[in-house]
């Protein structure tokens, strides 16, 4: 893992001290709320419905055991004993008190963490594939470049007041697990004709009230010029992005209104100016950063295997966990383990302080001290020896973290919704909880197979409903809540935006509506191997619409 150098340590310490002073001046009355609000937002401190909310950056979703233990400690001492992992691979605490924020930030700085640029119109945390550096299907590990982007984008003086927030996601694998086509910039590892590794650059993707699939602006940018190319995009956006209308200020609108070719021309003109300048990334520096992400010292475990079919007979719950929560590793005899934060009836993405400590212990003992946060609001132990899977599972069972439902219908993305969020129009957590109860039976989940439900409590789409195979959007109607259902969204390399299927449903009718859709899929699928999204693409919306609303 990357370790702070003196520059990182200095800027985090400097900002921590600065914001502590600002908090104290606010509490003393020296600063008004109007003066303080932009300062707190620059430091990830929001005011939500019931309390402040502190969003802490987890750079490219990677945590050490020490960092996870610190998050557990903060949850225990300063919050209410739990934290909420987000779709940006960050963590949010829902109940901190203003006077405790300086102490929390000092605690974070002691483990090389902070909350800088987790809010505001700046470049946010770069997200990556949760299996980076471990996945068997990976071309390259994206984390070294993600770290370089972090260094370039942190406190970048030119990009502190962009027209709107800006999000970058990257994947080193052809199988997109980071939803890169729904980010302002998406980077996908690519190999050119000469066998060199670089990046496909996608631009103008996003969700929110105007969902857009990113467009390919450059099919190959070599590592050495990537920062210059990114800076060129940022400059074009910073110059031409709309500042007159918040709802049209994201780069996706600029790309859409101006057209890709126009934007591409502007970016290329800028790139011609900055290419080969100070932003050129020397191979030596890339090598230096890459060394932080060197593969751990894997033992020769190539003989280790687990017989999932056998284990499923002996212990079905363990068999399900093996079936769904294990991802193929590049190193023989190892696997990546997804720790589901989606228990039946739970709030998606929440983990208690005790659970965070347990996960930290597991990472230390079984995963070379490494952890990941997924954009689907789960955790990952990236490097577990196959021979240790049972031991890991047993600990997870004791910690109530052993749900074998990764990728299944109960593994939902869900925003905090109107139970917490000041922007929300409708609740989302209770909807998710009811759906998990409806589909709690493991056999039923297995029968349904891969199905991604994503729930947002407002049009801002923090719950990624546009890219759910089934998306649920809560809206306000006549003072109450109503839920629109979309079908056909997909956040992967086969990116698509879901389509509203018909009139919305009252909250209590949503689980039944989901069940109707699922039953329709099962009745119409060609075989159990045809997933929901595949069946939807083949069948179109008609049979689902008819099942929900009757024949037209």
């Amino acid at each position, binding site marked *: 893992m990357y370790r702070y150098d003196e520059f990182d340590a200095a800027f985090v310490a400097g900002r921590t001290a600065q914001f502590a002073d600002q908090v104290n001046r*606010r*509490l003393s*009355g020296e600063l*008004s*709320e109007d003066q303080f609000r932009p300062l707190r937002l620059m430091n990830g401190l929001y*005011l*939500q*419905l*019931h*309390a*402040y909310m502190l969003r802490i950056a987890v750079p490219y979703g990677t945590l050490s055991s020490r960092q996870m233990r610190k998050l557990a400690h903060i949850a225990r001492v300063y919050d*209410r*004993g*739990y934290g909420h992992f987000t779709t940006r691979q960050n963590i949010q605490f829902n*109940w901190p*008190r*203003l*006077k405790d924020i300086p102490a929390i930030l000092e605690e974070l700085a002691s483990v090389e963490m902070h909350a800088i640029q987790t809010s505001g119109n700046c470049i946010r945390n770069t997200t990556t594939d949760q299996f980076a550096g471990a996945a068997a299907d990976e071309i390259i590990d994206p984390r070294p470049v993600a770290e370089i982007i972090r260094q370039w984008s942190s406190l970048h003086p030119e990009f502190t007041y962009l027209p709107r927030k800006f999000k970058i996601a990257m994947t080193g694998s052809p199988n997109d697990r980071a939803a890169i086509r729904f980010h302002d910039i998406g980077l996908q590892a690519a190999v050119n004709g000469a066998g060199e590794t670089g990046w496909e650059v996608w631009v103008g993707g996003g969700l929110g009230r105007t969902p857009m699939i990113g467009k390919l602006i450059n099919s190959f940018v070599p590592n050495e010029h990537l920062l210059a190319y990114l800076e060129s995009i940022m400059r074009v956006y910073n110059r031409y992005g709309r500042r007159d209308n918040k709802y049209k200020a994201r780069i996706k609108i600029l790309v859409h209104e101006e057209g890709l070719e126009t934007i591409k021309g502007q970016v290329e003109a800028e790139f011609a100016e900055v290419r080969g300048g100070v932003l050129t990334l020397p191979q030596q520096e890339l090598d230096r950063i890459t060394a932080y992400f060197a593969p751990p010292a894997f033992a020769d475990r190539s003989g280790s295997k687990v017989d999932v079919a056998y284990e499923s007979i002996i212990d079905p719950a363990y068999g399900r966990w093996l079936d769904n929560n294990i991802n193929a590793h590049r190193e023989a005899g190892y696997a990546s383990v997804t720790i589901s934060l989606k*228990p039946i*009836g*739970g*709030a998606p993405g*929440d*983990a*208690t*302080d*005790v*659970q965070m400590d347990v996960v930290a212990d597991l990472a230390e003992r079984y995963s070379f001290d490494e952890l990941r946060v997924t954009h689907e609001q789960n955790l990952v132990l990236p490097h577990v020896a196959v021979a240790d899977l049972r031991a890991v599972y047993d600990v997870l069972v004791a910690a*109530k973290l052993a749900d074998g439902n990764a990728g299944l219908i109960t593994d939902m993305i869900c925003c905090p919704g*109107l*139970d*917490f969020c*000041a922007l*929300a129009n409708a*609740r989302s*957590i*209770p909807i998710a*909880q009811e759906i998990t109860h409806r589909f709690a039976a493991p056999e039923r989940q297995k029968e349904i197979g891969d199905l991604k439900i994503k729930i947002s409590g407002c049009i801002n789409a923090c719950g990624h409903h546009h890219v759910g195979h089934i998306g649920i959007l809560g809206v*306000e109607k006549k*003072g*109450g*809540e109503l839920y629109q259902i979309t079908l056909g969204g997909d956040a992967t390399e086969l990116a698509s935006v879901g389509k509203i299927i018909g009139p919305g449903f009252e909250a209590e009718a949503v689980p039944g509506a989901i069940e109707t859709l699922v039953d329709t899929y099962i009745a119409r699928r060609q075989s159990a191997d045809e997933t929901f999204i595949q069946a939807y693409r083949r069948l179109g919306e008609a049979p689902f619409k008819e099942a929900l609303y009757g024949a037209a």
Partner: protein
Amino acid sequence: MEILTGNELTSGGTVYLDRSGAWVEDLQAARVFAKEEGAERDAALAATKGTGRVISLEIEEITLDQGLIVPKRLRERIRAAGPTAPLTLNGAIYDRQHLGEDGHVSI
């Protein structure tokens, strides 16, 4: 009819202006402003802004149901009661935020 609500500075907790000019946690203690009391309402808002201790101030419409104050917006009913989701993972009830010892504000 209207009430005044906001979030207390140090805790962020939901508070209401009561009849004595104090900002309190209890929705039912809130001062209800009738339509013709707009001037008093605005004076109370201005005085509160002057303290700097209650933020995100809002005027909320309410109805009275057998003497009980009921905010018209669901959002406000959730603010008053706390999150509605069932128990947290650690078995606690989702409670709203409470004021600390330094969270008492009057105008």
